[in-house]
């Protein structure tokens, strides 16, 4: 059964009562909330995702609930809960979807050490993965959203799950996070994309979520072998340009952008080394999306 098979009133009721359990492969997440519009947002973003039976094992029990604290409640705030403990400062209930997404990312980043977790966008083409590790503000998400709508399969916009044993990288095809100016840019670049309502005044500015394209959701259980590591940076008026960089540098950037490289010790070192060995490592500068996409296509096609 998929999320789309439940009607709105029933979904809202279930989320309020015990929560719904979603298969966000490779994880199973139960989400509870007493905020009706969050149920609607989830119904849109996770429409095609499988609903799991109540009795199954759940990896992460999360909730976004109206703040019990009297003052926060008066201010219309909500909180993210994990394992029955609130984990963040209260935020406006209007930002509930963003809180849920960030919260789930945090659970994974803090606990899913069966993978080497890299803060990166991951897209696939021809069975090979493009990995873009980058700190916030590098334009990674915008570029990722653009590529995802121009022939690249989205695995993730933020969280690459590297399996150290197989060397394959996994993604969850969850919604893409966009902020501020990226929102109108992608809306015009990909008019078919399904957006959440924009959520203003978050700590990152105005945020909106874009549902992953259908092909990405359909194929989300399929990992890919990393073939390109690209460090993106957006610079006003810059022509699109790909420049090779040293593998040692790519290695260090990947390690720095990893949530848990450190705890994997030597296995992490060797696993990341194998990944970098098998990849072309590049720095990418751009200002215009269509130019960027065209350059990527040309480059990756010539490489195959």
């Amino acid at each position, binding site marked *: 059964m998929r999320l789309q098979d439940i009607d709105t009133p029933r979904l809202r009721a279930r989320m309020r009562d015990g929560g719904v359990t979603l298969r966000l492969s490779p994880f199973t997440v139960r989400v509870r909330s007493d905020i009706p519009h969050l149920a609607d947002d989830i119904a849109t973003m996770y429409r095609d995702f499988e609903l799991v039976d109540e009795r199954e094992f759940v990896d992460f029990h999360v909730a976004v609930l109206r703040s019990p604290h009297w003052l926060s409640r008066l201010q219309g705030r909500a909180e993210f809960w994990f394992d*029955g403990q609130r984990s963040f400062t209260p935020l406006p209930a209007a930002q509930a979807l963003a809180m849920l997404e960030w919260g789930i990312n945090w659970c994974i980043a803090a*606990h*899913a050490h069966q993978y080497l977790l890299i803060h990166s966008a991951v897209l696939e083409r021809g069975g090979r993965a493009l990995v873009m590790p980058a700190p916030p503000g590098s334009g990674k998400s915008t570029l990722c959203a653009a590529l995802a709508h121009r022939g690249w399969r989205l695995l993730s916009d933020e969280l690459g799950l590297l399996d150290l044993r197989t060397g394959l990288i996994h993604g969850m095809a969850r919604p893409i996070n966009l902020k501020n100016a990226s929102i109108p840019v992608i809306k015009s670049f990909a008019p078919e994309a399904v957006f959440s309502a924009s959520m203003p005044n978050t700590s990152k500015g105005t945020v909106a979520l874009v549902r992953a394209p259908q092909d990405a959701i359909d194929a989300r259980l399929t990992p890919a072998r990393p073939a390109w590591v690209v460090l993106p940076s957006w610079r006003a008026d810059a022509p699109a340009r790909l420049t090779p960089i040293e593998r040692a540098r790519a290695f260090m950037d990947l390690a720095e952008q990893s949530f848990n490289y450190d705890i994997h010790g030597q296995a992490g070192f060797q696993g990341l080394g194998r990944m970098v060995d098998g990849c072309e490592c590049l720095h990418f500068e751009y200002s215009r999306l269509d130019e960027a996409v065209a350059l990527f296509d040309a480059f990756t096609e010539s490489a195959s």
Partner: protein
Amino acid sequence: MSVDRRRPLLVRVLLQPAVAAGLSLNDWDLLLRQARRANLAGKLAEQMDAGGWLDTLPEPVQPHLRSALLLSRRQVQMLRREVDLLRQTLAELPGPLILLKGAAYALGGQAAALGRLFSDIDLLIPSEQLPRCETTLLVHGWAFDDELDAYDQRYYREWMHELPPLHHERRGTSLDVHHTLLPPTARTPLDTRALFESPRPLPGLPGVFVLPPEDMLLHSAAHLFHEGELHNGLRDLFDLDALLREFGAIEGFWPRLAARARRIGLTRPLWLALRYTRSLLDTPYPDSLPDELGPPPGALALRLLDFSYARALRPDHDSCRLPGHELAEGALYVRSHWLRMPFGLLALHLARKSWSRMTAAPKAPQVDAPGKPAGDRG
């Protein structure tokens, strides 16, 4: 969730790991949540690993336990390095630098350290070296946690027994520097000088020591049964249980423990430690031992203590909450502050603290920034 007054699942499994073999996936779902909230996921994982069961557990469960193992093992490695760096930083102090609590269990090789997660390092130094220690630390990149106002600074320094918490600006390590085990303003006087009598050296870390077994155990008891915030209460109780089991095997330990408790003035916390480790964790020790620790608390006080600790020493998860939990937490908080400072000061402090609690919000961990995973504090 209906109230389950029995021993929590987490406790039953930790006391008898073989129980885990018969658990359903639903049981495991609950067990992992209790373990994470109680800060005992690492211990659970180590037990499964030690018993050789890890590979036989249900598929969805294994990654959670393996993750906890990775995390706790990496932390021990980092801890050793942090302590070494501290040692180098404080090399000019006469010392001795005595490690306390988690760091001491890990580097002293105690069984209590297995699977334990650490969030900070606790250090004990002679009180006359405190000013110089503070200056040296500040010069070498340590800073005070900056949300402390002047009131809190005074609270720590004058009324408690430690410098305000420090963190290393570049490495992020947290450090608590103590000059005694109980606040000087405490009702029961503690013979602090005795603590420095015979510290145990640590191989490979000259100048760094841990307390001898009796003192280590007494401190663990004092820490748990004087503390107000029991977020890690069950974890600390398991520490005590592990120490009692491990040291109990040493020849002549029990009479030495009793004598030492009387000598330095920690008979009451030890008495409570023995009572609650026995009732909640079946910890073995000579039945006559509590009698050697002076008169027990009065019947009424004892009933209140039993009520409070029975609630507070359960995993901090909804599935384990007994009715009266908030009352218990409140009672213990008041009690521990009663033990710590004279009554006049107490009323003032509590009034101010409860105001900040009402208006403060929980801190937000960093979501965007990659780095160490955000574990539980403490």
